[in-house]
């Protein structure tokens, strides 16, 4: 089943539909997470920020003038709270000069205290990719999911699991990726045109795996 639009979910959740709210939480908590983790806060602070973002959204559901812009609202609210928390921690350091000095020399002052908007744009684009993916026909979702499987599967295995003939995997992959690329969910995101990569935050874990798809060697051998 394809995903419901954010507008319809916001409207339903605003009208008392708890399932719609749960769907919003499931869809956008990865966005909150994606922004929070770029700030390298401790887990308890991150959890408080996440909870506050959702409490604020509950309060503001009926006030959102542009429900389609909800992802941006969530990203910005999250970032705002992260910056507040960093500021609070800095103030706490100021209370204890020795600790502040130690921290300074330990070089552990959060590098992302002025996390650039670029990081926010990347997080928003990753969300847009997830949204666009959820809008794809199920056939495409399944194929792409198997192609991204870790560890990578051979084309034979992908063919067996999707029920698609091997010869159609490549063309179908291209068509599905084209649909993804042209999805309004993705093209609407600011910066998507000039920011082709969505690599994770600098402080985050490196992304495992390399280029998408099965090991091509298996397939290219005669």
């Amino acid at each position, binding site marked *: 089943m394809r995903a419901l639009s954010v507008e319809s979910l916001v409207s339903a959740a605003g009208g008392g539909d708890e399932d719609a*709210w749960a769907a919003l939480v499931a869809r956008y908590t990865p966005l909150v997470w994606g922004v929070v983790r770029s700030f390298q806060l401790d887990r308890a602070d991150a*959890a*408080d920020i996440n909870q506050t973002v959702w*409490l604020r959204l509950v309060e503001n559901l009926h006030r959102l003038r542009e429900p389609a812009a909800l992802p941006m609202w969530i990203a910005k609210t999250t970032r705002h709270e992260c910056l507040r928390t960093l*500021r609070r921690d800095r*103030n706490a350091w*100021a209370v204890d000069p020795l600790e502040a000095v130690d921290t300074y020399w330990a070089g552990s002052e959060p590098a992302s205290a002025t996390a650039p908007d670029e990081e926010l744009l990347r997080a928003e684009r990753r969300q847009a990719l997830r949204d666009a993916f959820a809008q794809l026909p199920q056939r495409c979702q399944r194929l792409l999911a198997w192609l991204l499987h870790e560890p990578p599967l051979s084309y034979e295995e992908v063919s067996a699991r999707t029920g698609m003939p091997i010869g159609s*995997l490549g063309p179908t992959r291209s068509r599905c990726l084209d649909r993804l690329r042209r999805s309004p969910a993705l093209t609407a995101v600011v910066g998507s045109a000039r920011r082709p990569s969505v690599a994770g935050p600098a402080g985050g874990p490196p992304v*495992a795996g390399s280029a998408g798809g099965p090991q091509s060697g298996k397939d*290219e051998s005669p």
Partner: protein
Amino acid sequence: MTQPPSDNDRTLLDDLRTALAEAGEVPQEFLVAGRSAYAWHGIDVELALAEVVFDSAYDAELATRATAAGASRMVSFQADDVTVDIEVASDGITGQVTPADPCRIMGQGAVGTFDETTGDAAGLFVLGAPPSGPIRLRVAYADRAVTTEWIY
């Protein structure tokens, strides 16, 4: 034979992998907390919001002072004509509302009300220990009510 993806497709697949992996990394507690926030849906949505106008946790100079006096946190909220000043310690919240007219004060956490009381003749009140996580106060006078912003 299936051709390997083009460079463009490869980049997009890699980006998609990163994006989908991020969704898989979300701590379960984040999802639970997000869903539970709906408990507050529809409650007091039309009330005036008292915003934070001072918070010792975020004001360096005064934070120093507050910490020197003890480990509690001072926060002031302001709505149109209502001021709420609180001192939050781990064992409870003391505060004062202005105006000091008869009112009911509720301490609310992420999942529900943790304590409620009435203001005395001077608007002073005491609430029990707040839960961890975000909290807010609701102040109800006979003819109007305000809720504060969430603080944590």
